[in-house]
């Protein structure tokens, strides 16, 4: 865990930060995992090259991309398939995809590739070994892929507005790692500096898939017209990321990994606290902030979504960000005491959540010397166990202090006990049902923290304060798990989403945005309360740009001119 720092600016309270509404306004920051990975690639001079591109004229076949890090080699194996239109669905329920991928630990031999060619296309139905780190699959964007090829094959670049409105050539629908389907367990690579950071192996495969999509369109366009076709322009490539459709599958993760989640949010809040504590702002730092803020405003203008609610929020965000910019550009701004704190306090009191959270992200940008070190300490290396020496009196105190938000919920109110979360038999993925209407509530997932704490506290009313937890759980073993959870919450204050995730007002898409922003996702495009489209790596450097000096200057990408 990060060391606490002494400063007169207080860290934001978990009661404010860990609310669903605020999670649903999160933006990526310098701490985000994609940003950190690109910085690592640059720092260690990684080399990423296509080693094999055995695709037919239509773009179907096998391609290999080799990643040479300072210590090891990894290989992306891509299987590009024909997908008939009736089988095309981008949902997680699909069984066939345009392309399937595996990230191999080392250099695969022919036997490996043959074995994987039989398993990777099956995804969840395949079996894998510890040499395989991640599997994924992606579909071509129906809106953009064919249009780009059509333009390139005729010697033209695609319409940039169309490119911007979609943002990607392919969209992944799942990325699996950490032992799923026999894949390598995370614990086998946590001692590797390049993969120890959270979700780095998943972020790496997504980055490599993005490179494949560029080579794929160039290849198909060339095969259509070898004489007149052109490659996709470098600036347009940079403006294209990888799409992703994320639904409920990701939501319970934030609840079932409390220490990890604490580390992420605590790191972000400490970062903000440090920046707000800066007494004087130099002109270069101010100019950096103003520059990136202008870019962010333009980015928000180019952030096109069909969701009416998000569209309204974006319009308000742009309006408020102009006001933030006015404040920062005022000639007296730099001479205020703790200017960044002034700015953030003003935004917190006068502006909406989207603006506050975007401002947080922008404030971290000019300070790599402070933030990037913090971004290196986000993994969870602890093992938390129930402290059975604690007394019931102490446990009661912790609950009353840290879980008031849970105790205030009346679970006898049907609205507060409305949903249940379960695993679907078909896809082994989390789903959400309505209690009393949908089947399966008796198989509810064990993620109802607020409800369980509520019940525990009621039971503890009748238990003597001096009893040890060991003796309590000996008789009440059903509370063993939640008692441990409460203890974790007392040590890791940002470990809980402080809202009721089974109420009728809970929007899982808020949980998703909170997590995806830490990944580095942008252009959130909510399609319902349950799922969202996003773009990853939009604006990120290409593989042959990793060594350039401005490698980290890709946040809030805007359309190339």
């Amino acid at each position, binding site marked *: 865990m990060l060391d606490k720092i002494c400063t007169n600016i207080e860290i934001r309270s978990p009661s404010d930060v860990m609310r669903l509404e605020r999670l649903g306004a999160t933006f990526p920051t310098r701490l985000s995992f994609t940003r950190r990975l690109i910085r690592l690639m640059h720092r260690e001079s990684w080399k990423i090259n296509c080693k094999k591109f055995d695709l037919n004229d239509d773009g179907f076949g096998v391609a290999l991309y080799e990643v040479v890090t300072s210590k090891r080699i990894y290989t992306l194996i891509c299987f590009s398939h024909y997908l008939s239109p009736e089988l095309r669905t981008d949902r997680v329920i699909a069984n066939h995809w345009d392309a399937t991928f595996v990230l191999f630990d080392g250099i695969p031999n022919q036997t490996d590739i043959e074995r994987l060619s039989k398993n990777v296309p099956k995804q969840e139905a395949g079996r894998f070994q510890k040499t395989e780190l991640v599997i994924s699959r992606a579909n071509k964007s129906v809106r953009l892929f064919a249009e780009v090829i059509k333009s390139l094959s005729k010697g033209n670049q695609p319409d940039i507005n169309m490119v911007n409105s979609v943002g990607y050539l392919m969209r992944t629908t799942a990325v699996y790692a*950490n*032992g799923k389907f*026999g894949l390598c367990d995370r614990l086998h690579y946590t001692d590797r500096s390049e993969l120890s950071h959270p979700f780095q192996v998943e972020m790496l495969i997504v980055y490599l898939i993005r490179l494949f999509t560029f080579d794929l369109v160039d290849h198909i366009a060339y095969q259509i017209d070898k004489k007149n076709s052109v490659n996709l322009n470098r600036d347009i490539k940079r403006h294209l990321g990888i799409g992703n459709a994320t639904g409920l599958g990701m939501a319970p993760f934030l609840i079932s990994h409390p220490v990890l989640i604490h580390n992420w949010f605590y790191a972000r809040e400490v970062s903000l606290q440090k920046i707000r504590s800066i007494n004087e702002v130099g002109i270069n730092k101010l100019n950096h902030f103003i520059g990136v803020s202008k870019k962010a405003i333009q980015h928000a203008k180019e952030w096109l979504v069909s969701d009416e609610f998000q569209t309204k929020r974006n319009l308000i965000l742009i309006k408020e960000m102009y006001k933030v910019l006015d404040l920062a550009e005022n000639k007296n701004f730099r001479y205020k005491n703790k200017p960044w704190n002034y700015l953030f306090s003003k935004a917190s009191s006068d502006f909406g959540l989207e603006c506050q959270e975007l401002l947080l992200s922008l404030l971290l940008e000019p300070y790599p010397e402070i933030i990037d070190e913090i971004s290196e300490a986000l993994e969870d290396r602890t093992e938390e166990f129930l402290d059975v020496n604690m007394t019931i009196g102490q446990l009661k105190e912790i609950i009353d202090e840290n879980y008031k938000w849970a105790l205030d919920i009346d679970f006898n109110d049907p609205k507060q006990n409305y949903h249940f979360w379960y*695993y679907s038999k078909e896809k082994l993925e989390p789903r959400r*049902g309505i209690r009393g209407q949908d089947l399966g509530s008796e198989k509810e997932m064990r993620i109802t923290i607020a409800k369980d704490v509520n019940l525990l506290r009621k039971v503890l009313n009748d238990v003597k304060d001096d009893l040890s937890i*060991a003796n309590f759980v000996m008789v009440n*073993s059903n509370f*063993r*798990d939640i008692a441990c959870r409460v203890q974790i919450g007392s040590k890791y204050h940002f470990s809980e989403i402080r809202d009721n995730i089974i109420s009728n007002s809970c929007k899982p898409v808020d949980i998703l945005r909170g997590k995806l922003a830490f990944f580095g996702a942008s252009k959130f495009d909510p399609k319902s309360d349950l799922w969202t489209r996003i773009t990853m790596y939009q604006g990120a450097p290409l593989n042959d740009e990793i060594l350039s000096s401005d490698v980290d200057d890709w946040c809030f990408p805007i359309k190339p001119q």
Partner: protein
Amino acid sequence: MIVSLNEIQNLIYRSGLAVKLPAGVAKENSFVAVRMFREGFGSLNVFVKAFNSLRKTLSVNFDVVKASEGNFVPMINKRRLSSLLVSSSVCDLLTLFEENDKKKIIVKKIDEPLILFFHILQLSKKLNRDFKVSFFLQNNETNFLISTYEGIYYLKENLFEEIDADKITIENFTKQNLSSDFNGLNKGNIDFFLEDEVWLYFSKFSDSLLVEDSIKSRIHNAGSGLNDND
């Protein structure tokens, strides 16, 4: 089949929930299953036996009154003590011991002693403390296993195959007292092999927690409609 540790953990955790183990107890048993594999015990057969015993009520929970005095016995006479249910509580009481405590915990008629032993091994790591586990066998022979932060020490190599003790005692131990007759157990291969029938046995429990999809749930419970091509 080759499996990952994550799969083993999920399989035992979800199977535990399926047979109504409390969530915390199911979770700790799943960590123990992983620990067994990491220590080279490439089998979950003891868990199969323990699950069978519990489901058929051949094994039951412990007598709480006696347990609070450090004496774990089955709550019903002529039944075995469920290792799945008792092990966490045994470890809780061991945690309450001071390091120089001379007290012993007694566990009688446990169904699968090895499961309890691996719980204690987990505890050794957690507390950075050593414990001596004595197994009193039916032929009046006694064997010992030493559980330490670093791993397992044993006197008799094939002990693990024949642990079937009517009585087990657990007490504090200082590794400095370890005689040269004891050997450290080597950790096994990094490949984790699970017999197909064991995988299927637990998958059946684990899958019983899954909810059948319906047309309605396919459309509404995961996100939007059936097709969202873009």
